């Protein structure tokens, strides 16, 4: 095969490889070059067990943002979660953030429930009302130990 043909076929091969890589990185891997417009809220939880960075934030079942950071507050022994909420999704001052599970063994996500206050939270504000992750084991444990104590 002559030189030109080899270069042509190799070029097609390289383009094919780069195209499939881009598809995987952008479409499946979720790499975005421009960060979606939005604002960041924080929330404190007693337990976020199982929640990971990049987890989904849902309001009424619709995806409205992602968990952008998780840190630990040693003073109160609480978890501080940064929530990146999309532009155009208002969150009122008395909204509730709760950690829920998709199905019984599914992934953890943050559920936002809107409150009734007219004032909305802005960038960097904290959501005061939170509900921690529900641990099935703890619930069962409580039940067992309570019934032990009652006897």
């Amino acid at each position, binding site marked *: 095969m002559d030189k030109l043909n080899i270069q042509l076929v190799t070029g097609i091969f390289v383009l*094919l*490889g*780069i195209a499939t890589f881009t598809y995987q990185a952008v479409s*499946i891997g979720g790499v975005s070059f421009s960060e979606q417009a939005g604002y960041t809220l924080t929330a404190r939880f007693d337990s976020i067990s199982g929640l990971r960075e990049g987890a989904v934030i849902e309001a009424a079942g619709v995806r409205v943002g992602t968990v952008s950071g998780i840190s630990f507050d040693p003073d109160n022994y609480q978890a501080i979660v940064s929530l990146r909420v999309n532009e155009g999704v208002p969150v009122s001052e008395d909204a509730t953030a709760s950690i829920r599970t998709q199905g019984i063994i599914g992934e953890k996500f943050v559920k936002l429930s809107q409150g009734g206050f007219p004032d909305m939270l802005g960038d960097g504000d904290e959501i005061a009302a939170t509900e921690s992750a529900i641990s099935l084991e703890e619930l069962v444990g409580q039940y067992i130990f309570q019934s032990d104590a009652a006897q």
Partner: protein
Amino acid sequence: MRAALEKLGAVVLGWLEHTGRTFNLLLLVTVELLQPPYRFYPVVRQMYFIGARSLTLIVVSGLTIGMVLGLQFYNILQRFGSVDLLGAGVSLSVIRELGPVMTALMVVGRAGSSITAELGIMRITEQIDAMDCMAISPSKYLIGPKLLAGLLSVPLLTMVFDFVALFGGYFVGVVMFGVAEGSYVNGMIDTVEWSDVRIGLEKSLIFGLLVTLICCAEGFYMHLTKAGSQGAEGVSSVTTDAVVLSSIAVLYSDFLIEALF
């Protein structure tokens, strides 16, 4: 007793020497490649041979593996009534594990064996010594382009493999068994993260380097091994060694990468 120990020691020393020689070659070629003159066309030719000519094999095997995975996962998930996880299962196992490993093994079988045979024959017919006499560095001229081409081609092939395997899984799940298209595609998007794609890419880079390095070193240094004195038979035996060694290297380094990162 002593004779047995000596034999054992000789085997171990031989293996250590073998490994050292292989990685010495990597260092040597890296240093040589950094010095001018830079020649690009030989790299393109090797990429044509290692990469472009392997595309058919990669596409066919990717499609088959994707379809098999789709079938297997479907059968298992169906029992738990969670066929919605099909896309997640297929895509995660293909992108993280099967894509890089299968591609590397395919490249070993198709291109690696012929690299070893080519270099081995050049060695026994004294073509490599002739280059030395003409003050052409055989490691730079022969091995440099192959290493670069392997390093570039294997990741590209892996990406093609992943894509085709995902399509194979999609075909079995959505077209044949009627899993909802949205749950397949969204399961894939939700589960696979950039870190998974990145690990797949890093693995394939490492595999590409390892496979071409081992296959080149086996052929290039065949005169230093016991088989090297046996002429044509020696070439066939180092080619077998190269395939076995690089397959083991791929599988074991896959385990190491998975355990460490």
